[in-house]
Every structure is written in structure tokens, then in C-alpha cells.
């Protein structure tokens, strides 16, 4: 469960990027966070990852109080989440397999576990045949699938995707969204998609939280992108 209670974030005094945010996201929910540039989407994501600290209010993710969290605990919070970047952030000199395995290596998984589980994650995102390809040999959609497989690698409860379709064509975008929905429905992952792509948001009729000038303008289940 993710809970923002009167959360505000200011980078300098009285210059609030987010103001009095109250959001509750239950386990297994699928949520779009939308809004124009400067609405506060990126800051909200940074707060979730504890890349930034909240200025006021309480932010809770499961057993973690992010507003009071010590630096040394941050890695353990992040292990409960998978993150997908708009620009994929894959290692160009590593194969698909190695890119995914990297996530498990980092948190100390055994080689045996890595060998057993990595192919399964790659298969889950539909790239079984591209296991030994390098990122340069993949399309944008495929790269994002690898990033998704990497995000899944440590079995996180929550997946945060920051503009996951920003760098890929519309057809591929649809595939990625379907994959995210499948992960939500079949594996029960909590999915948070930060996007400004109206068509995609409107198509899936999920919960949509709209940010505008740092405040929650609307929060609708089965909602549409607010213009």
C-alpha cells in the first residue's frame, strides 16, 4: 500500500512543486499519473523512490515511512519496487540476459537462482528468442520489454514506469501497456504509470490521477485523461 498524507515538496522555501498531496494506492492497483510538464509528476516519482525527501506530510510504502527514513534503509525500500525508465537505461555492452541478471546480481542473488529465474523473466516479456542479443540489435519496444524484465527480476510488489512509451512507436506502446496490465492482473503487481499519452490512458480506463501545478486536480477510477 502506498499512502501520501498531506505531502508537500518544496525545493526552496515556499516554492512548492507538490502541495498537500493525499493519495492512497492499494496493493494490486493499476494507476496512471498524468499531467502536463511541470505538474509535479517527476517529483512525485522521485518521492516514491526516495530520491527526494518530502518537505511536509507523511509518505508510507508498506512498512517504510519515507518521510522519516534513514539513508541506509533506502536500498531496501527500492528492492520492493521495479523501475522502468523512458530511455530504457540498458547496458549496451551486455546481452538481454546479462542486463536482466545484473539486477539480481546487485542484490546478492546466487548464480544458481540467477540462471534459473532470468530466462523465465525474459520469457514473460516475450523475448525468449532474443536472450543473447545486445540492446543495439533490439527495437525500442523490445528494449522496453528488457527493461521491464529487469524491473521484475527482484520480484517487486510495485512497478513504477516513468513515461514507458515515450521513446517507442504507438503500436509497440500498446504492447508495453498490455504487458503492464498483464503483470497487474496475473501477478498482482501494483503498477504506477507516469505518462502524458492521452490515447493510451483513455483506452485502458484505469484509475487516473491528474496533477496540475503541484496539486491533485482529479483522481478517478475508470477515468480518462483530463485536458
Amino acid at each position, binding site marked *: 500500500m502506498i499512502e501520501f498524507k498531506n505531502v508537500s515538496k518544496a525545493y526552496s522555501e515556499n516554492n512548492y512543486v507538490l502541495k498537500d498531496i493525499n493519495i492512497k494506492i492499494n496493493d494490486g492497483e493499476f494507476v496512471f499519473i498524468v499531467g502536463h510538464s511541470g505538474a509535479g509528476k517527476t517529483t512525485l516519482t522521485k518521492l516514491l523512490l*526516495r530520491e527526494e525527501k518530502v518537505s511536509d506530510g507523511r509518505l508510507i510504502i508498506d512498512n517504510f515511512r519515507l518521510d522519516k527514513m534513514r539513508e541506509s534503509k*533506502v*536500498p531496501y*525500500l*527500492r528492492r520492493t519496487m521495479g*523501475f522502468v525508465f523512458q530511455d530504457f537505461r540498458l547496458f549496451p555492452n551486455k546481452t538481454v540476459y546479462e542486463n536482466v541478471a545484473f539486477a*539480481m546480481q*546487485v542484490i546478492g542473488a546466487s548464480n544458481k537462482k540467477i540462471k534459473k529465474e532470468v530466462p523465465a523473466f525474459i520469457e514473460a516479456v516475450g523475448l525468449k528468442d532474443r536472450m543473447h542479443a545486445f540492446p543495439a540489435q533490439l527495437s525500442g519496444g523490445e528494449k522496453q520489454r528488457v527493461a521491464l524484465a529487469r524491473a521484475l527480476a*527482484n520480484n517487486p510488489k510495485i512497478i513504477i514506469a516513468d513515461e514507458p512509451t515515450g521513446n517507442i512507436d504507438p503500436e509497440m506502446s500498446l504492447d508495453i501497456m498490455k504487458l503492464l496490465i498483464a503483470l497487474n492482473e496475473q501477478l498482482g503487481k501494483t503498477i504506477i504509470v507516469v505518462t502524458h499519452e492521452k490515447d493510451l490512458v483513455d483506452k485502458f480506463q484505469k484509475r487516473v490521477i491528474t496533477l496540475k501545478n503541484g496539486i491533485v486536480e482529479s483522481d478517478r477510477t475508470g477515468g480518462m485523461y483530463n485536458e
Partner: protein
Amino acid sequence: MNRLNFVSEGTRQFFRGRFRTFASIVILTSSLLLVGVFATLMIVINKSVDNIDDFNKIVVYMKLDTQSEQVSNAKKQIEGLKNVKSVKFISKADALSSEKVKFGDDYAYIFDSYDETTNPLPDSFEIEYVDINGVDALVYNLERLDADGDGKDDGIVDKVKNRYDIAKNINNFKNVISIGGTWLMSLLIALSVFVISNTIRLTYHSRELEVTVMRYIGATKTYITMPFMFEGALIGLVSGLIGYGVQYYIYCGPMAELAKKLEGYIILPAFEEMNPLYLAIYLGAGLVLGIFGSAIAIRRFMKA
């Protein structure tokens, strides 16, 4: 992931760095070498100073007409003076034989014409003192020996010769070397830390993507920083070993040659005698500087 991953990752970074690794090693080796050279210089000076004959001795020459009774009284009085460690009496006859020996067989004939009555050399005392700082006072008292105890200068002392000036000069020389060396070493050490820290910073930038992804995945600070620290440590250790090798070459080559030429003036301890000291200086200092440089470089990048 095995716990020793940082070793392989740090080693890979070390070799991947090529020019920057090389530059760091050159600078750090030079600094360490300088530390080694100064340490050697201090050791050699100390050893050589200990070996200089009569270095901490004062020689009192009595006037030629001094009576033997006055000489024996003078000895007693000298023994009672403050700061005197030992007194050795050298008679006129002993002085003459000693000179004959110094001149060797070829020139011994020069002294043949001298006998007990014509011996031009005076009786003398060799005095060893305790504290160099009390030499002035001791010399003052020796110049005014009062052998008959009447409270007046007897005028029996011709000359008081001491090596105080040499001692002082050597002391000054040691001070200059140690102060100058400390400054120079500090400067080079700071430069080494700066270069290593830049090397590690460049490594960090070349791995920025990896570090970013690691942070988002949940890698601990230790996991992320260890390869950088290890790379710094490796640069330090390699520099230490090279420095040690160069020092060995200098010590056993040119320096040993020089010591041979200046035999009697310079005492060069056997390299083996200083081995543990050198290894400790080179490897220890290299390691500490390498790790310190790395820590400075990555500290500001390590925000959670």
C-alpha cells in the same frame, strides 16, 4: 552475487582506465619514492653522524710548560665539571706515537728527530660530553681551568678544540632536510590524492549509467562504492611496489657506489636491514593514499 565481486570489478576498472590509471601510478610512485628517499637520507645521516670520530668530544690542549702535577689536578677538575661523561688523558708521548702511526711508515722519519725533550706536542684531554646544549658552558669552564684550586685561571690551557660547530651544522642540515622533505612530501601527497581522486571520478563517470541503475535496483552504498575503493587501493599498491623496486635499484646501485667512494664518511645500512621499513612505508602509504583519493572522489556522488 558473491561478496568478492568488487575485486573483479575494481580490477577491471583498473585496467580499463589505461592512461588515467598510468598517470595516477606515475604520480603516486614519484611521491612514494620521494618519501622513501627522504627516509633513507635520514637513516644514512643518523648512521653516519654516529660514526664520525670525536663528534661529541672536546679536546683540551695544555700548554707545553704545564707541570705533571698540574695536569693530574686538571684531570680531577675536569672530571668534576658538569656535562662531562668521560675524560681521557693523552700524554705528549702518546700523541707523538699516534701522529707517527697516522703518517704511516713512509713518513715516520719526520718524527725521528723528536725525543722526550723536543716533542712539540702537548698533553691533552679528550672529553666526551653528555648534552650538546651544554657545550658552550663546558668549553668556557675548560678554557679557565683552575688546577690549584685558588679560584683563579691558572693559564695552563693552550686551546680547547671542539666539534660543536660541526654537530650544529649537521643538526641544522637534518632539520632542513626533514622540514623541506615534509613540505615537499605533503605537496606531492596532496597532488597524488588529487590525481587518484580524478582518476576514480573519471571511472565513476564512465560507469554512471551502471551506478544509476544499481541505485534504483536497491544496491547498497557499500556495494556501489567498493569497486571504486578497490581500484584506488590497487593503484596505491601497484605504485607502492614500483616505488619499492625503484628504491631497491637506487639503493643497491648508484647509492652503494657512492657510499663506497665516500667510505668512512657515509654509512649505508644493508638494504635487507631496512626492508621491512621500506615495504611498510611504500605499501602502507600507497594503500592509504589510494583509498583516501577514491573516497574523496565518490563521496559526493553517493547520495542515496
